[in-house]
């Protein structure tokens, strides 16, 4: 797809966004992401923003992968330490790890790169109607399944029909794009007739009930891998994909072996995505604690991730440490309907006595962002900074006294360390700060599995939230009145209204302001202490070239090569 072609059919919103960028109200990076979502080729979008495009293949093939390294050598096996999980049905994956196992076999319609820009993958390009309610995906031609079939619109339709089947229990039904294709019928969700329209073999159109901007982004959510139209779970009984590799062995808790596909039914297999360099990708099962040790012992070439507590160890090992900024966090929330937090003054005293900026360096000395006691992260494209928080110990004491606790108060926080021991470190730092305001914080450390049993009910708990691409997404998942993941019991019509308005607004700049309003309401209500947005770390040996860091820890090894 050439730039000219794009501009001729450019979505009016792109023009709007361009104007905003030119007047300085929209950053260049965000413009690129925004334009790409609206169907502008990433290269063109970078050009329009006047930014240097990252080394992504710029040729006519319009590939989402980085450009080939001129020094790259073909061959070799990449061994990665990661939990090896069950991969029976890609639509019901619960963890990123499982999707990494299948990622080089089962591919996605779109692909979000480390630069947070979404590029077409199995789709060649897409178009949105002016009201963002009709989306047309033009599928890439010449994509072959490993059984020799052509990849067509039928495959895509089959997948959407599976996801919207409530009996399957796929979490994809909750994506804003997919949920705009279903209706409630007799208390059961089902696909609306005519929501999916096959235009021709390689064109498919989706008619949505509400405007959705993030459609292409949703199509890289980890359970949206596209399977063959004849797919029946479990996956091992019908290994078939469009990727350059296929899984030859998957033993849960032990190993997952992927090999390059070279031929299909006697014919040489030609991968649509250009050259791939590795012969094989091996995943070996190591739990989170032992991956780094396995790496140090040179059993593996790369690892899925390691915790900040292992940083010194990592630094002492020969290899490249790769960090990515994320919206993963620790939300130390107080249930507004549980004593003593029913009194807003108590909650306020807690947040006032804590200095988030002082906690971050204790927990994550390098990288990461300081939280602002609401749930929109600086990496979110719809983030807008609020007035900086200041610590006020005396004020906290006064509030406590006013609330009937003149001699201080004793609180207990449940910590499950579900995402590593840094939760406890953060809680301990909070404890030390709260002491100054006369608040005694007991830290109740419980096993991770126990924590997940009580995470929505405990009066005061530290919950890890994963990265989500948009601030509105996570705010509506976690703080809207009565939603299942509303772990704080927060209920504010004012907040809900602000959030609704933000979600319905497509103008990026206006949306930011509206979301900031919702964030301000949340912050003022002192529902949580959100000290840190954590970075994620992984590691690869020096012989691994082009190992990408991705904020959601998705593995994209197409252009990785071993020296």
């Amino acid at each position: 797809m050439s730039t000219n072609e794009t501009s001729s059919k450019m979505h009016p919103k792109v023009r709007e966004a361009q104007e905003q960028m030119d007047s300085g109200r929209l950053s260049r990076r965000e413009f690129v992401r925004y334009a790409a979502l609206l169907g502008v080729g990433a290269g063109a979008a970078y050009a329009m923003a006047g930014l240097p495009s990252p080394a992504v293949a710029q040729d006519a093939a319009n590939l989402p992968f980085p450009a080939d390294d001129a020094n790259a050598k073909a061959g070799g096996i990449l061994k990665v330490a990661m939990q090896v999980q069950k991969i029976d049905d890609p639509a019901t994956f619960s963890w990123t790890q499982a999707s990494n196992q299948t990622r080089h076999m089962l591919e996605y319609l779109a692909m979000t790169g480390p630069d947070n820009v979404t590029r077409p993958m199995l789709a060649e390009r897409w178009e949105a109607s002016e009201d963002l309610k009709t989306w047309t995906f033009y599928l890439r031609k010449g994509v072959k399944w490993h059984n020799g079939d052509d990849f067509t619109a039928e495959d895509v339709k089959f997948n959407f029909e599976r996801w919207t089947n409530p009996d399957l229990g796929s979490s994809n039904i909750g994506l804003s794009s997919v949920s705009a294709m279903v209706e409630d019928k007799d208390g059961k969700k089902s696909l609306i007739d005519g929501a999916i329209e096959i235009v021709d073999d390689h064109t498919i159109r989706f008619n949505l009930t509400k405007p959705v901007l993030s459609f292409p982004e949703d199509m890289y959510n980890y359970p949206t891998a596209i399977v063959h139209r004849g797919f029946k779970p479990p996956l091992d009984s019908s290994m078939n994909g469009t990727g350059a590799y296929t899984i030859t062995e998957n033993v849960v808790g032990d190993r997952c072996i992927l090999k390059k596909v070279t031929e299909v039914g006697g014919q040489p297999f030609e991968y649509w995505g250009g050259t791939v360099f590795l012969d094989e990708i091996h995943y070996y099962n190591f739990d989170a604690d032992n991956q780094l040790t396995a790496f140090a012992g040179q059993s593996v070439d790369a690892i899925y991730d390691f915790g900040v507590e292992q940083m010194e160890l990592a630094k002492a090992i020969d290899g490249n440490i790769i960090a990515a900024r994320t919206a993963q966090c620790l939300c130390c929330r107080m249930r507004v309907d549980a004593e003593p937090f029913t009194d807003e003054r108590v909650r306020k005293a807690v947040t006032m006595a804590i200095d988030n900026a002082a906690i971050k360096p204790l927990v994550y000395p390098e990288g990461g962002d300081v939280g602002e006691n609401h749930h929109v992260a600086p990496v979110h494209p719809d983030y807008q900074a609020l007035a900086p928080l200041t610590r006020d110990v005396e004020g906290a004491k006064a509030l406590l006294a006013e609330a009937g606790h003149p001699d201080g108060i004793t609180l207990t926080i449940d910590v499950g360390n579900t995402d590593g021991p840094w939760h406890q470190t953060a809680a301990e730092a909070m404890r030390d700060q709260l002491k100054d305001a006369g608040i005694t914080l007991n830290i109740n450390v419980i096993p991770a599995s126990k924590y997940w049993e009580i995470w929505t009910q405990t009066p005061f708990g530290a919950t890890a939230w994963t990265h989500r691409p948009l601030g509105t997404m996570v705010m509506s998942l976690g703080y809207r009145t009565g939603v299942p993941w509303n772990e704080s019991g927060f209920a504010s019509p004012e907040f809900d209204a602000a959030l609704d308005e933000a979600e319905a607004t497509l103008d990026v700049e206006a949306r930011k302001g509206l979301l900031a309003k919702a964030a301000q309401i949340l912050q003022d209500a002192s529902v949580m202490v959100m000290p840190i947005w954590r970075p994620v770390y992984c590691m690869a040996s020096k012989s691994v070239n082009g190992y990408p860091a991705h904020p959601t820890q998705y593995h994209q090894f197409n252009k990785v090569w071993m020296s």
Partner: protein
Amino acid sequence: MAVTEIPSGPSVLDRLSKPKPVAVLVLLMWLPLMAYVMFGQAIGGEARAVLLPAIPATLMLYVLGIRAFRESRVAVIGLTLVFFWLLMAVSAPYLPLMDPNKPIAPFTTPFTERNDLFFWLGTDFKGRDMLSRMIWGCQRVLVWGVTATMVAYVVGAMFGLISGYLAGWWDEIISFVANVLLSFPVMVLFIVILNYLGPSGFNIVVAVTFASAPAIMRIVRGLALDIKTRDYVYAAQTRGEHPLYIMIFELLPNVRGPIIVDACLRLGYTTVAITTLTFLGLGLQPPDPDWGLMIRESAKTAMLWKFSYMLLVPALAVSSLILGFNLMADGLREMSLRD
């Protein structure tokens, strides 16, 4: 590994178990320590004040112990090791140590100075002082280990007396249950029980009781079978005493001596069990320091020669305590055989 030779000569053991002042001193040492570790949070404020009487009591007990054990060098060494840790446990809050839970300077190697503080044993991955954690860590191991062993003994001895003295159906049932429990490998039993109850100090007591009581019951049962044919038991029976009275006042005092050696060994096993279970994530929970926990936390952060002190310190500490218990048992056995 619960097989124990039961010594027959009771004199040293009797000397140990009879005098009243010793019992008073033991209580003076033990109760404050237990109260401090188990209920320190509930006491709050100046909880460490409860430990004040325990410090002199521990020292006096040590002196008395040395005098009683002077015949056996091995036992004296064992006693010294055990009392070193006991003394550390009761005096930890009074020693000039850094806060064991406070992060100061991560990954400081031993014998170096940082932030104007000298770290004898370095700091761990969070920057907490290793020396302080090592010393504080013995509290929980000792208190939970000894409590668990004691409870196991109470339960085991009770069933052993009933089974041995009353015989008949009682014996059949109790012995069958004991056999069932004994046919599980200990670790399997621990894992199943703690996984069901959830990891905590109190639940370790329960698990250790399940695992150890059957073996104790067997020993006590054997002794009771022997003792119940003695004249003084017959005398009590003819006096028309209640079986409960006979079990508690006639049988119990006479089985006490032989099981002291077994108790020392069992203290060692229990310490191993607690440390191992905590390492596996089934035992004591953070954040308070504990040797098993120190190993668990360091096992993923310190797998490098220059950081290996983080693993070495707790490993040596726990080994020295267990060595102490085992040497004591050895010395006691040696002395009782000699008498």
